[in-house]
């Protein structure tokens, strides 16, 4: 079976699985959650969450359509400064003969930001392997460590340098937030990495880490979807990926048609959201006088 067909089948299977999961999560309702205690019975369809189902089916359809579109045409992505600087940071570390530090935050393995972070790590590790620049990855979660070891190992194999892979450079520190922070600070001061990457979910440790890295003179690139920590990264790092820029990083760096198609699908989704919001505002403003019934129906569709 050729690669293109197998990838299409894989994409289809993934899409079906995702949709299956989403549909089951949206419609299945345990008995204890039924309308009243007197009418306890298992429900297979939760009508109150139909709007979630519709959005998910619509979005899945858009993404699948974009995957087919992306196979035939080149797709444009606007430059993202933080990601353009990734290659410069790798080059700087290589020239200085110092390691790079990659911190994927405190998120668990199923966190969306952690998954996005692991995609970036794969790209970085591949470049690091090609230039034989060590990459240090201290982990806060044992499962994340296991997955990141696999990713870095695979990256070294793809770069043709499997022997250069050092599993001990990807290690578990502790699950304690500030214990982990203290240890990573110590690594920054002792190993003096030339480039620090903070990608994933961060909490109060964000500024402590970024400020220590700043003190050591390393080039720093951060990315998180935690809006409360973004201001600290913006002030203490050279480049910051804000929110969805972090999710886009995997597609941006790999230029894989599958990931680019997801990005295009997200953009189409944003256009639809914008149109729906403007429609809602117009209806809420003028429709109240003209067609009050329509306004109530339209707005209640978005209400959980």
């Amino acid at each position, binding site marked *: 079976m050729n690669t293109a067909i197998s990838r299409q089948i894989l994409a289809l299977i993934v899409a079906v699985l995702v949709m299956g999961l989403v549909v089951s*999560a949206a419609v299945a309702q345990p008995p204890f959650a039924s309308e009243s205690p007197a009418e306890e019975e298992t429900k297979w369809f939760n009508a109150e969450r139909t709007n979630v189902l519709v959005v998910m089916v619509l979005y899945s359809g858009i993404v699948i359509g974009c995957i087919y579109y992306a196979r035939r045409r080149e797709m444009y992505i606007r430059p993202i400064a933080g990601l353009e600087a990734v290659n410069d940071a790798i080059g700087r570390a290589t020239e200085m003969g110092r390691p790079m530090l990659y911190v994927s935050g405190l998120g668990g393995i199923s966190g969306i930001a952690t998954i996005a972070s692991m995609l970036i790590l794969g790209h970085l590790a591949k470049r690091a392997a090609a230039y034989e620049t060590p990459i240090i990855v201290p982990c806060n979660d044992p499962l994340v460590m296991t997955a990141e070891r696999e990713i870095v190992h695979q990256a070294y194999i793809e770069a043709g340098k499997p022997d250069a892979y050092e599993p001990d450079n990807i290690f578990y520190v502790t699950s304690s937030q500030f214990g982990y922070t*203290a240890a990573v*600070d110590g690594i920054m001061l002792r190993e003096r990495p030339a480039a620090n990457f903070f990608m994933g979910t961060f909490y109060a440790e964000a*500024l402590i880490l970024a400020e220590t890295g700043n003190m050591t003179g390393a080039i720093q690139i951060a990315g998180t979807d935690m809006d409360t920590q973004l201001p600290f990264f913006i002030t203490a790092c050279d480049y910051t990926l804000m929110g969805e820029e972090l999710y886009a990083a995997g597609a941006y760096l790999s230029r894989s048609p599958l990931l680019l198609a997801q990005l295009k699908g*997200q953009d189409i989704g*944003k256009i639809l*959201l914008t149109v729906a919001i403007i429609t809602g505002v117009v209806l809420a403003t003028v429709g109240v006088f003209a067609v009050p019934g329509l306004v109530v129906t339209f707005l209640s569709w*978005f209400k959980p």
Partner: protein
Amino acid sequence: MPEAAATSSTIFGLSTQIIGIWVAALLTLAIYSFLYGDNPAYKLGEHIFVGVSVAYGAVILWYEGLVPLLINPLFRPHLVEDATGPKYSLIIPMVLGLLILSRFVPRYDWLSRWPIAFVMGLGAGLSIPRSVESYILRQMHGTMLPLLPPGANGGYDFLTGFGNLLLVVGVVCTLTYFYFSARHEGLLGRASRVGIWFLMVAFGAGFGNTVMARISLLIGRVQFLLYDWLPTIGIHLGGPGVG
């Protein structure tokens, strides 16, 4: 302090509470010595912090995770209230958990991918509908506000209307900043620049708010050193304390 010391136990004639205060104070100072730079005191504090937190996590995992959720219901059901027998369905998560340990056997380490894939898939499947509901639909509903809301005396509340307009413009412009598959030129470029302004104003407000919270944490630690630790060496500054 004397009352508390009288009720606590002693080691070598010293109250355990006093010993605890000294350990906490010295470790606090060791960690703060980082402000001077990397030094042996910081290294000691860091290694104790990491070691103790890992050990504490392991104990918590055993006594609050494995024992009540797996070992007792499966192997010691007589210790579980209302249990009618061993809960055999727990064998599935137990096997998945054990597969993680295959990392120690290089020949079979690929088996550890199964539980990781399961956790990632389940996590994503559960979080996607929740995210759609809370981050998209609820937010959209909260943004669809009238620009001319009715005010008192049958007129319009223009001030609230202006606030609603600002909200809608902010949301739409910020969304355009996160539009990746088109060049940010012309109208899209201008809208995304406005979006960046909205983002920066929000971040500025968030920065100030969080810095205030961090300062209060620092005040708490300094208060501990001044009012709990110093009195143990005979320096009394007054104010709050444990004694």
